[in-house]
């Protein structure tokens, strides 16, 4: 479990050290919408996953790019090139849904729990500095709207 008390000193200091990068998000945006059974949902992950043939995530400015994951992707096509070595990858190796719950989302769509699953989902790489994601995130919002998405499920790793 990720409770700071359960981590090593190094891990805890690293995670707490990140807090200074995370201040200053003072806006409180709030978008309303219909019940979830009317929503079209896309997954946006920061797990650094992508299809096998896509460019792997890299350090530097390119770290803030995203990759497109078509809704029809099969689990066998997904790999992970996240920069960090400080999290468990064995779960993802066993089952992509523990990181990127695409099958669960499709089940919910088929059962009417949500309206529909989006045609496209997106992957960032979470080791990028948070503020470096802003241009691509704002660009992404237009793509989500084109896909008629009115709810984004954001998942870290």
């Amino acid at each position: 479990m990720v409770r700071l008390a359960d981590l090593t000193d190094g891990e805890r200091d690293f995670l707490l050290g990140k807090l200074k990068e995370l201040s200053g998000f003072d806006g409180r945006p709030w978008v309303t919408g219909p019940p979830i059974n009317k929503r079209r949902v896309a997954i946006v992950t920061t797990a650094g996953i992508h299809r096998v043939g896509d460019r792997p995530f890299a350090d530097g400015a390119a770290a803030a790019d995203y990759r497109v994951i078509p809704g029809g992707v099969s689990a066998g096509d997904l790999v992970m090139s996240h920069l960090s070595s400080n999290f468990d990858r064995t779960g993802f190796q066993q089952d992509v849904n523990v990181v990127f719950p695409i099958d669960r989302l499709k089940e919910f769509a088929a059962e009417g729990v949500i309206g529909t699953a989006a045609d496209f989902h997106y992957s960032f790489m979470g080791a990028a500095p948070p503020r470096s994601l802003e241009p691509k995130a704002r660009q992404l919002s237009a793509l989500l709207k084109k896909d008629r998405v009115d709810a984004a499920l954001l998942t870290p790793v």
Partner: protein
Amino acid sequence: MGALGHYLEEEGVATTQISLVREHTEMMKPPRALWVPFILGRPFGVPNDATFQRRVLLAALRLLEAPSGPVLEDYLEEAPHPPDDEVEWFVCPVSFSRPPGEDGLAGALQNEIAELAPWHDLARIDRGRTTVALSGLTPEAAAKFVTNFIADPAMPSYREDLTPVLALRLVCQDLKAYYFEAVAAQPGVRAAFEAQTWFWHDTAAGKAFFKLREACLRSDDESVRRFGAKGVVPMAVTPRPAEQT
């Protein structure tokens, strides 16, 4: 993660998110977040447990119906652990039958990869996939790249379109994935941390990665030194005295 929540919501797209580090989410106050008590790397808790994953996903989606925010809710169901009396500790999950010869660590690494091959084949068949697909190299070639780099940190990338640091990172991730996928195919119930202990302290690959870290730190390339400092060995892994160079 919280930054994306702010940016997308400001642009008119409603968001809900999983939070793995509650302190980060408390600081950023994204519109809607569900903190989950799972290990880093498993935001939906349990691999191959659709029922568990569905409960987490539904709890996150339901936050979209909250009347006002920001919302930070705790998901209190822990991921189940195998009972202690069912956990089978690693003793020697593969038979590394041939001792290292004159070729030392490089030979031992190739030996391990060969010994694990049937288990990795089984894992790939059982899962219908493998994540050992980043570098484009076979595990044997990836291992050779690592041991050659340890001997000569100035050696070039194996592919012109990959910088040395990216080549190293992809090779390392493929090698680790090969080991973890292979060992997970073996019989027995094990907790995730045990495979980590096995890899880092009981295999030639673990020894090679400790040496690779040292080699990276000797590189003239700053990005390679940064990778050596943070990217080769996880922070939680401390070399035992015999593993230190």
